[in-house]
């Protein structure tokens, strides 16, 4: 899941009723993929930081 800050950046997760079903699917998939990538990125960053602090000790 995206953090609060990322959710804020990604905007509302709701879909517009004006868009066609395929457009809505496209939007949802793009959001899910980006949220996943951001979550993975954040996880790796924390992992790196933890390793660096271990090395420092």
């Amino acid at each position: 899941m995206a953090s609060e800050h990322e959710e804020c950046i990604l905007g509302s997760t709701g879909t517009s009723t004006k868009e066609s079903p395929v457009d809505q699917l496209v939007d949802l998939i793009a959001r899910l993929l980006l949220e996943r990538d951001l979550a993975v990125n954040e996880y790796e960053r924390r992992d790196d930081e933890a390793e660096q602090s271990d090395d420092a000790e």
Partner: protein
Amino acid sequence: MSGETTKLNSQTTPSSQPADGRAVISCGVLLRFSSLNQSTESCDTQLSRIRSEAERDTIYRCTHANDRLVISDTHVWRGEAVSGRSQDRPELEAAKRAIRAKEIQALLVLDTSRAARRIKTLMSLVELADFYGCEVCFVLDRLSTGNPAHRKMLLMKGLIDETSNDMHAERTVAYMTARAEAGLSLGSLPYGYTSEATQTETRKGREVPSHFKIIIHAERSAIVRRIFSEYASGLGQGRIAKGLNQDGIPSPGQSHLRDGRVGGWSQRTVASILKNARYVGLWRWRMTKAVTNPDTGQRAFRARPQHEHVDMGPNGFIEDLRVVDGQTWEVVQRRIEETTRKRVTATDPSTRIFGQRKTSEADHILSGRLRCGGCGSNFVLVSGAHGGGYGCFQSHGKGTCPIHQTVQRVRVEAAVLQVVRGVLEDDAVVRAVADRYNALLRNQIGSGSVELDRLRHERDKQQTQAHRLVDYIAEGTASPTVRERLEQAEAQLSELSQKIVRLESARRDPLLLTSYAVRRRLGEVLALLEGDPVRARPVLAKLFPEPLRLHLVLSEGKRWGTYEVEGVVVVQANGEAGDSPVAKPFRVRAR
């Protein structure tokens, strides 16, 4: 309607003015009668009265005093057997739509009570008409919204209409209370009872049966006894319902099914019978009241205080109407209480509140979207094994559908997601996903620059402070607290610099997604959709606009087989505005 309106409006232009030179005003007419006991021709009577007054030019009006009123047939709205207190009145809404669209310049109503019997509804119609420049004329009252002096009269007349309706309701309740106290039927009766007339009355010159006495229906009361005795002997409510269906006994609602419904006994029907105290002879009236939610217009029921209850026999007890003996009743009520307690304590407390689900969100991506290919009833989760198994509700809940085989939830979802994969194989769709992803990412990086500016500003502040502290220490007057503060400032400075470097590198090197990468990640996409049912379900519901039907294809010479999912899927985006999306039928095997 629009063509007719255009014609009427064009008549108001000077070229279409009649010989007398008066402008023609297109009028709408709002008609209503409330009770089926009133003549069904009541609307026609109202209309002919209004028409004749319009033709004789005797309708009082202010704004259009010198114009000729013409009633268009397409602007006559009838509310037949509709209460003036009701909030759900299609004819009133249609009239309001025409006022908003300026299709009519005047609205004619026989009197204020025909418009509404709630002052709030009446005045909201008046305000709407005022705003859109439509004059409302109340023919018999000789009142018009075009005359500002009539506003007070309209308020008074609306108040009288509402009050007279309240008084009428009070009289009806008094009449019904007398009937209830005499133990007579007041209308609908629980399953197992019927009624017979004990008197006749003359209404509008006709002899009609009245004073209906409640009596036990021999055959149906035997079914009620069967339900009570089976439950008391340990059978479950669902099992009892299935047994009744298997024996071909018509359910209480069988005679008035809505279109497309299958009917039959269900666990809920049995449960409501088991909880109804009338079967043990306790008859009380006015224990609840119907209320309307002013925000949503939805009806709900509230318990009345005990002093409002009306006993229909001595202490509310009528021995002649007792179907179940007291001992069986006690056993059944104890068992219901125990079962409820067990169910509440057995379920995960984090998902429940006061014994009910905390959320109304569906748990799975296809919840509520599946139908049985045999009977058309809902396919619901009937088993919890292996991630859940879907089965026909009519078959598992009522025993009325022969298709009993279940299918694993994951298999059905996988089959449907394969259809979604098919939609995603289109190059244009894949490109759209990549573009949308990149747009969202750019947005993220763009907003990162704001964060970057903030961090740089913070770093500059910390740097200035650190320089001041260093100068102070150099003067040789610093205490250990000042040195400690300098260390803190240096640590914060280092942390800020790290953050700035990280954000700057992200800005320089944005990892944009290509169509090729999206295509490679299709498996992951489907897993993401499956893993987020709350967001995926509404989108899939639009992508599959019709419910998905599950057909059981039997294996050769066997009583079981494999399920196939049939439906239609929207395969491309809307074209020009107003075009409907292109939908393609599909049928896939769930395995």
